[in-house]
């Protein structure tokens, strides 16, 4: 079952097989959480949003025209859900009489570990660069799977991944310089 393609899994879910949706969840929940984390900068919120994204996707699975494109599709849902989350945050802050320029930044920090700092740095990259890193490192470092999620050619994906990693490396070096 776990070797089934996304298309086969989507069709199985539509036929009533919840376990198939569990497999799709295994494959894509980490990357959806990463995408949500770019917005929330907080793991707990990202996990909550990702759960909501998967629930919505399940309810709207019949809308998916190309079942083989489940990955890009659910990432699109995640982006929209995060936008919604951000608007809610702005409204809440307005009600409280507080308004930040970017309600996502600086929330729920407690990201003082090395891992947390790295993820914070990733969140400063461009959206495509972030997604390239998420897709590669959360899809078993499979360039083929990652490029499919992004809808890029293999060379296009490698170029983007390389750019993201280069920027990240430079930023890390800069941070180390600043510490010295």
């Amino acid at each position, binding site marked *: 079952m776990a070797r089934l393609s996304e298309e086969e899994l989507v069709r199985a879910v539509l036929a009533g097989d919840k376990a198939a949706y569990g497999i799709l969840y295994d494959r894509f929940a980490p990357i959806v959480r990463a995408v949500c984390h770019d917005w929330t900068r907080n793991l707990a919120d990202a996990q909550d949003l990702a759960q909501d994204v998967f629930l919505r996707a399940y309810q709207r699975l*019949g809308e998916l025209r190309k079942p083989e494109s489940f990955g890009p599709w659910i990432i699109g849902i995640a982006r929209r859900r995060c936008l919604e989350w951000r608007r809610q945050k702005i409204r809440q802050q307005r009600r409280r009489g507080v308004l930040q320029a970017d309600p996502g930044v600086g929330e729920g920090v407690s990201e003082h570990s090395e891992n947390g700092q790295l993820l914070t740095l990733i969140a400063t990259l461009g959206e495509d660069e972030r997604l390239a890193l998420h897709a590669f490192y959360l899809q078993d470092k499979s360039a083929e799977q990652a490029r499919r999620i992004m809808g890029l050619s293999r060379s296009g994906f490698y170029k983007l991944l390389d750019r993201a990693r280069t920027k990240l490396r430079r930023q890390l070096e800069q941070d180390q310089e600043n510490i010295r």
Partner: protein
Amino acid sequence: MSAHLDESLDRAYERFRQDHKALREALVASLPASATNEKRIGAVHRLRRITGGLTMNSKMTKIAVAAAILIAVLIGFHYLGGSSVGTTVAWGQVAKNMDAVNTFTCRMASWQRPIQTPGGAEPPQEAGVTMQFSYSDEYGFKMEQYTDGTLTLIEFMLRKTNEGGRIWPQEKKYFRTTLSEQERAMMSPQDMDPREWVRRFLSASFTPLGQKTIDGTMAEGVEINELGVIRKSPGPSTIENYAARLWVSIDTQLPVQIEEEYTVGSVHSGAGVDEFQWNPPLSATDIEPVIPPDYTPRT
């Protein structure tokens, strides 16, 4: 450095796998019984806008027109050939006659205007939207909506192929899909069953309205003022001065007009269904609209 970065990223990304198993179990446990096939449900939602949405800006117009359509659908399936010819309507017989209707056509229209002030006699303002409705037990239904005399929307449901759809002539767009049995049933809830509707009308505490001539036909009417008797979901809870009236031909013992009116806030709204033809010969081509080849699908 590159290898170090790679390892650091591996470690950093591990956090997105944190609690995965528990989250997975929670998600799967919370899933509905089956994934919704939105292609089909979406179709039903769109089709149900026949009675709810429509392409109008005014909320009140929506309510009024929705009421008109609903009444038409309710009436829709009734009666045929009552035999009584006399000077009054045999109300008990009317309900029985409904069951014999196989096809019908009618016109639906709605109106609204500000509540009349003392000394100001303002006639009802037509909402500018009318609908021509055709129903067949065998083939389904078709509704053509006219806004200010221009055909703006066609809705249809085809029984033989279980298909439904909408056409927007001005935009040269259409939507067409296959409906499941369940979805077809959703489009014909009991609340919209004409026999049930007439039964409700006649079993309620109604007020006789006497007789009057409607388009040359002598008719007798009854009125109901209790909200929620005819329809369980008539609209916003702020509805006041509600009245639903049924006018039946003394000659044919068939409905000739149904109307509903009420006020919401400072607006008086109403909807009427008339120009009935009962059991006209309708064929499949009368119900299934032709979608011109230059129209494109709307998703």
